């Protein structure tokens, strides 16, 4: 029966993450961007929230909690509201644990998952995006070819979070034209980190270019099964993160507009500003609901490709528009780095480009 009410567990989870995002994450977001660095302490604090471990079954050392995409959508929004770079950093291990949980054999699970259930943050990552215009997850240029029972990976990847620090990298590559996931250890020969990416936004998050040059991995490194649900989940996570970023920008602009006076009244009392804010609020809610619906469908085990793509594309447009409008509401103040909105605009612009950068 149609309902818009998170259940009790979801509410608790969301509130915990929200409080972390507001009190711990947001205050250091600007510094992380300027210094291009995220302090270990915040990563460890996030780790202790159990976001990664909770979804791992007890037999593999985790808490055995649910893996609901709806719950993830709620969590992602709050983390995105805090800071996108930090959100992507602390969620990065999921880029390994989730595909392994969904697609991995018992052996792979046993091998990989316990590493991500310890007391301290362990980095994991995925290499999906490629440095090409019109990058397409269904037509990867990185190839996986069989060679004497092993796989050999070749090609270039970009925007790989945490790169050299990751214990495992899930590399997506085309095997006979079909996208497959491969589990690659960080010390595998032929897997080379080229350099840290210098990009416009999410500057706190360390992302890297990777080169796969005759990178040999055993056949057992392949994760069996369909990667589509993985991508769909990532789209939902990104859409929800975008909602969080947009909400942050909206609230900041709203509060500024109520505070700032022009022509004798708060600028929020001017229709041009007030209507802009109203449209922002509507589009944020609209996107959240699209993401929820896609997540709900995914949770039912149905093909959520249509819903998650629509939600993600909608979110990418929405977050750009909302963050751009937030800068506009602040006027000159929006353009200087004393205020957060320019950072959110830079981060917001990324969503149209990001694919597979988050799983939650």
């Amino acid at each position, binding site marked *: *029966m*149609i*309902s*818009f*009410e*998170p*259940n009790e567990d*979801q509410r608790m989870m969301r509130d915990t993450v929200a409080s972390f995002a507001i009190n711990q994450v947001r205050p250091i977001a600007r510094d992380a961007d300027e210094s291009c660095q995220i302090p270990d302490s915040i990563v460890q604090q996030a780790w202790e929230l159990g976001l990664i471990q909770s979804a791992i079954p007890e037999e593999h050392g985790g808490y055995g909690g649910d893996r609901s995409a*709806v719950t993830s959508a709620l969590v992602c929004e709050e983390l995105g509201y805090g800071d996108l770079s930090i959100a992507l950093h602390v969620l990065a291990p999921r880029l390994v644990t989730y595909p392994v949980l969904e697609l991995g054999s018992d052996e792979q699970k046993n091998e990989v998952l316990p590493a991500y259930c310890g007391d301290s943050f362990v980095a994991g990552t995925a290499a999906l995006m490629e440095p090409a*215009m*019109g*990058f*397409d*997850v*269904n037509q990867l240029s990185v190839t996986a070819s069989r060679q004497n029972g092993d796989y050999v990976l070749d090609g270039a990847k970009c925007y790989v979070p945490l790169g050299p620090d990751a214990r495992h990298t899930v590399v997506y590559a085309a095997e006979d034209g079909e996208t497959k996931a491969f589990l690659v250890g960080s010390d595998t020969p032929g897997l080379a980190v080229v350099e840290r990416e210098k990009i416009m936004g999410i500057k706190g998050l360390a992302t890297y270019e990777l080169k796969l040059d005759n990178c040999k991995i055993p056949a057992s490194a392949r994760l069996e099964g369909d990667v*589509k649900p993985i*991508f769909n989940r990532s789209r939902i996570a990104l859409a929800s993160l975008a909602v969080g970023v947009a909400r942050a920008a909206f609230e900041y602009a*709203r509060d500024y*507009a*109520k505070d700032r006076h022009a022509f004798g009244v708060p600028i*929020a*009392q001017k*229709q041009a500003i*007030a*209507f802009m*804010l*109203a*449209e922002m*609020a*509507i589009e944020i*809610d*609209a*996107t959240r*609901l*699209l993401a*929820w*619906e896609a997540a*709900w*469908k995914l949770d039912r085990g149905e093909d959520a*490709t*249509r819903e998650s*793509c*629509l*939600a993600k*594309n*909608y979110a*990418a447009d929405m977050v750009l528009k909302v963050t751009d409008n937030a800068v506009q509401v602040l006027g000159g103040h929006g353009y200087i780095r004393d205020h957060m909105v320019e950072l959110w605009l830079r981060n917001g612009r990324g969503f*149209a480009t990001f*694919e597979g950068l988050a799983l939650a």
Partner: protein
Amino acid sequence: MIDFEMSEDMKGMRDMINQVAEGTMRPISRQYDEEEHTDPVDWQKMMWDVSKGTSVFGGGPQDKKERSGNGSSKPSERNVGATVTIEELSWGDAGLYLSIPNPGLGGAAVSAAGTPDQKKRFLERFGSGEPKWAAMAITEPGFGSDSAAVATTAVRDGDHWVLNGTKIFCTSGHRALEKSEGFVVVWATVDKSAGRAGIKAFVVDHGTPGVTVTKVEDKLGIRCSDTAAIVLEDARIPLDNVLGDPEVKGPDKKGFKGAMATFDATRPAVAASAIGIGRAAVDFVRDELAKAGVEIHYDRPVMKQSALERDFMEMEANLQAARLLTWRAAWMMDRGMQNNLEASMCKSKAGLAVTQVTQKAVEILGPLGYSRKILLEKWMRDAKINDIFEGTQQINLLIVARRILDYSSKELN
């Protein structure tokens, strides 16, 4: 639990109405667009027979009794159900939907603000006899969205109120007053100097002397719906035809404010109607694209899509976003939650989305889209009303803005 699955009951209702929409409404859709001001009598009779006594579209806030009553712990779906029903009917034809004999906004006002006696006197008639309509008359030539500017007057004269003024854009006004034994709820001021507080709602019954429908408007779309101009010239109505407290004083939940509150219920209904029209267009385009062998690759990167593909996906996403916002506003009402913000959000989004969706659909179909051979161009014309009535796009944005900014109508207007 967050859930987007309709209950089985609701699905059954939806499927049934969809059959009616496809089998009965669509075939006569063009006819009643071209033959403006003609009543689709068979359709009206049929729907009257099916729905009289109940309100398929009704909705409105649940009262406590209803929610907790009858021992069931199942929450009500009345308002969400109404949006589903209205979407299906409007998918069939929005003009025909609006011409169904029913208590409409006038009835909603009596339900919300009327005394038990008033409800009996005015609503019972909808349970039997010939098809009937009720309507609400707010707008006047001199004002649109600024509903506090009512110039129609009501003056007490012994046992009667005497009403004078002109009302326009009264949906189903002609049918309520002159084509059936219905009534119109007329907003009038009893004390101009008191502003909003002086405005009251009066039930004007059919056949009241001095009440004339002076014009039935020619419109861009929803031509089957009657939009009447009504002149009241010394129209005398019984004293107890006023809704709520006739005194001009402080908070009056049953009068002006009560009537305003009905918008929180009717805005999701209008949004649902908009979505029905929009879905008609999207469904049509989807079929045509399939026939033409155009595939939609949802997981193709935006930059590899065709312009057509992208347009179509945007149409789908916009429509679905509007639908979810609408369900949410209705669901809140079912839960007895205050939904003033969300009702305006969904109305604003749906009105705009559907205007754009249908306009784009016409463009996609090319020469055929622009032609009256198919219904698409009609849906575009029908759709636009949803960006206008029950509060224009602008009025709804204003309400949203007031709520998110915590401003009064005085601070932000």
